[in-house]
């Protein structure tokens, strides 16, 4: 009986953690921190990034932006800032 309750509790905890981290999966796919190579104008899609995650309302006129850590494209600047962070929900009732 205790084992069954423990298993049920474990499943519920895993589901809860999975639901809470669901919003962060888009940022994980980008993996921008480990890929700082500049993208040329003719190569808008990075083969290391899934295609579906590259259409995040990005201005396709790529322009290079010099920073202290190197040269980044505007595309990676917007992805790194994660414009989809935050929520408009005030929680469950």
């Amino acid at each position, binding site marked *: 009986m205790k084992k069954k309750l423990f298993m049920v509790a474990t499943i*519920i905890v895993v589901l809860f953690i999975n639901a809470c981290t669901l919003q962060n999966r888009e940022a994980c796919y980008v993996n921008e921190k480990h890929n700082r190579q500049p993208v040329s104008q003719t190569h808008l899609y990075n083969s290391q990034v899934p295609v579906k995650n590259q259409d995040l309302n990005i201005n396709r006129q790529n322009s290079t932006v010099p920073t202290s850590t190197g040269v980044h494209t505007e595309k990676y600047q917007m992805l790194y800032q994660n414009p989809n962070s*935050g*929520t*408009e929900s*005030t*929680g*469950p*009732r």
Partner: protein
Amino acid sequence: MRLEDARNAYYDYSGKLSNINRQLALSGIAIVWFFIQPKNNVDFNFGAFKWAFIFFSAALFLDLVHYAIATASWGIYHRFKETRIKPGIEFKAPKYINWIPIGALMFKVACTVIGYYLLIHNTVLGNAF
């Protein structure tokens, strides 16, 4: 359909879920109380209903935690934003502000379900008698 429609549906159904869960937890405690009534002047004993009672009580406690934490967190966040931005400006709240209320909602529903499972298990299968 717009994002607000989906959000309003989420608000409506989560509100109904909380209300139903609260009523079921109270009903579960009433059922436990009925079964543990003393007979023949013998002091009552929870017996097999002890864990069912604990889970129903936990569901009601988590109900309190849900609304207390949500009230405190949104009240504090509202005051925090009120002192920093002008009215009418749109912004997004941090995601983690809803994590505890969401967790409380999930766990209180789980506690009620487990409590009824124990209640039915102990009554239908006759372990309480």
